[in-house]
């Protein structure tokens, strides 16, 4: 009885906690944090679809609202003029005007480019007139014939409607080499993800379930190597690769070399992660297989591997993200050629050569993060699981 009262009192206070005005604060703070964390990426994504002229002059948060723009257009050429009621008339749509935009004001000198509202009549010198309507129609009259070979200048201020386009993507995929780099990145990533898995799985099994002297020491070694900075390996391995390359008369920077490098660098985490998982499998299942006559190899292939799928998936995602996103290893162990430069390397180059061209940078960056983001959102479950078992506790 007493217990019951106890817990109902508790329920009450927990419920109160839930309903309290504090909850609104919680919702709002989380919302604020989410916005803080997603806006930078959202900005990149939105910008990558914007027209490059608009992108350069207004912030992406304004991309949906129309912006005012001062433009110089021209009438049609003087040879189009007609004589009407004794006046020479030029009319039509202002050259260069896009139909979805709206003209607000216009003018006929560069000194006063927006002196007149649309549909009003501006008087020019020599008793000429100019009227422009918001849809770009103009009528220009003059008592003397228009001369020259080009149309007359018309200054106007238009309300530009937002323009979204895939042009940026088309451009980076074709002419900026992002398409090729995408393939290069895949070429590096796929084997560099698969190869370490098998090697690590066998090792993890040996370190979990096989009798061998110094097992504890080996596990400690793996844990220690988890944190060895890559920087330690770069120079010695670069030298080694150069030596081997010159010995065989081949380039030191090959796909083969970088696959092996990523395998080596990924192994400590792979072994650690898989060992944590495999060592946690029920002992009795493995013993049962042993009683059933399976040797270690059969146990590994027929029991351990199928049962370890979640851990294998976790590691595969880690390694995939790490290799795909890597710049350092790729820069050191792979060349700069068209058929070798990976996405991250290409982005770095673009940052140097096209640093101000945000339409190029945003689209390129988005191409490079699209794949990991897809992997992330579809396989997040395994990633979280991997993180939880992969960090040394």
């Amino acid at each position, binding site marked *: 009885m007493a217990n019951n009262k106890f817990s109902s009192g508790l329920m009450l206070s927990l419920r109160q906690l839930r309903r309290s005005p504090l909850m609104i604060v919680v919702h709002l703070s989380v919302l604020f944090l989410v916005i803080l964390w997603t806006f930078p990426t959202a900005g990149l994504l939105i910008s990558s679809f914007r027209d490059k002229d608009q992108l350069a002059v207004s912030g992406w948060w304004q991309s949906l609202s129309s912006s005012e723009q001062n433009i110089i257009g021209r009438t049609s050429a003087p040879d189009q003029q007609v004589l009407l009621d004794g006046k020479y008339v030029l009319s039509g749509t202002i050259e260069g005007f896009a139909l979805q935009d709206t003209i607000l004001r216009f003018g006929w000198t560069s000194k006063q480019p927006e002196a007149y509202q649309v549909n009003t009549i501006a008087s020019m010198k020599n008793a000429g007139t100019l009227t422009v309507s918001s849809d770009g129609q103009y009528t220009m009259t003059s008592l003397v014939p228009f001369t020259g070979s080009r149309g007359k200048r018309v200054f106007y201020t238009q309300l530009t409607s937002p323009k979204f386009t895939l042009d940026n993507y088309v451009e980076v995929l074709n002419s900026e080499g992002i398409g090729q780099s995408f393939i290069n990145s895949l070429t590096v990533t796929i084997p560099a993800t698969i190869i370490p898995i098998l090697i690590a799985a066998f090792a993890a099994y040996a370190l979990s379930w096989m009798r061998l002297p110094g097992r504890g020491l080996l596990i400690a070694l793996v844990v220690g190597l988890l944190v060895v900075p890559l920087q330690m390996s770069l120079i010695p391995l670069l030298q080694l690769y150069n030596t081997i390359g010159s010995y065989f008369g081949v380039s030191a920077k090959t796909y083969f070399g970088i696959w092996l490098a990523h395998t080596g660098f990924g192994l400590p985490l792979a072994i650690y992660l898989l060992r944590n998982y495999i060592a946690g499998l*029920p002992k*009795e*299942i493995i*013993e*049962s*297989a*042993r*009683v*059933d*006559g*399976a040797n270690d190899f*059969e146990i590994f292939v*027929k*029991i351990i591997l*199928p*049962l370890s799928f979640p851990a294998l998936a976790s590691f595969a995602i880690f390694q995939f993200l790490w290799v795909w996103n890597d710049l350092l290893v790729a820069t050191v162990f792979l060349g700069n050629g068209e058929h070798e430069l990976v996405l991250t390397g290409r982005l770095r180059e673009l940052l140097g050569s096209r640093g101000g061209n945000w339409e190029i940078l945003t689209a390129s960056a988005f191409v490079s993060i699209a794949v990991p983001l897809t992997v992330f959102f579809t396989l997040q479950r395994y990633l979280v699981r991997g993180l939880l078992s992969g960090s040394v506790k």
Partner: protein
Amino acid sequence: MVSSTGLTLKNIKKSYGKTDVLHGIDLEIALGEFIVFVGPSGCGKSTLLRMIAGLEEITSGDLFIEGAHVNDLPAAMRGIAMVFQSYALYPHMTVYDNMAFAMRIAKEDKATIDQRVNSAAEMLQLTDYLYRLPKALSGGQRQRVAIGRAIVRNPKVFLFDEPLSNLDASLRVQTRIEIANLKETMKQTTMIYVTHDQVEAMTLADRIVVLSAGNIEQVGTPLELYSKPANLFVAQFIGSPAMNIFTVKVLQTGKVTRIKTQNKNVFDIPISSAAQIKEQTITIGVRPEDFCLADKESCMLSGEIVFIESLGEVTLLHLNSSESTDPLVVKLPGIINKQKGEMICLKTELDKTHLFDEQGISLLYQV
């Protein structure tokens, strides 16, 4: 030679590093016998079973299965099959594949596998579930699959390690009956069954081996253990509630032992005793069910009721008595109309009592 012994254990010892877990086990098990290892948790039952199975190295001693020395033989080649407490089914394989696994490893041909799996499935009523994964089965079904997996291998020795302890009470009874039936159908197969539950031990075993702290306390049929426990440990381990014990003084030895209780009551117990225990303080044991209510005249023992457990078919009375420092328990048939705090009188038939010397060894087993 055709041996009629199923298993022979000669001075088998096990130690993990410096800690000795088993101190030298000697045991002969006949072919086709159903042996139960019973003992409190941590006494080394599983370890002994796993050594027989080949899952644990034998530190010293010799193990023979049907006459062959098997110490160094790996598990798979000893002709044993084992059913684990947690079932240990392969979670990613169907029931069929679980049962076929061992035969596939041994590269048996398909027809043999099929035939054996099907007949085992039929025997265990698993035919309808053959293509399910273990996670789609109930606990009882899983345990039957584990048993089936062992049956199909046609083992010489069938090992069970607490196979029922993960099941709920009703399933436990049912599966126990199935195992008893299994014993009938597989007459040539020696079975060793580990449990800490004495009911399982008593109902299933041909012979029970009582273990405690790495030693064998007694080996015998269930009834032997019940009626003639070799020592205090067995006496108190077998039977529920446990046997009541009292310390008494020996007044006279011989064909009949005369004892004096703490309340200075004197009884002649029809158990013979050697002269040297005269004047010693020994222990007398009386099972709760061997007491019955008595009137004033025939009263051997009186006590105050401190707690009553009415179970319907029996009633357990917990008493405080001046004869013993520990409360004693009495098991009486039917429903008893008594109140807490009441004083009652008890008696017992003296030939149903047990005497244990200072070392706790039963006088029955002394030469």
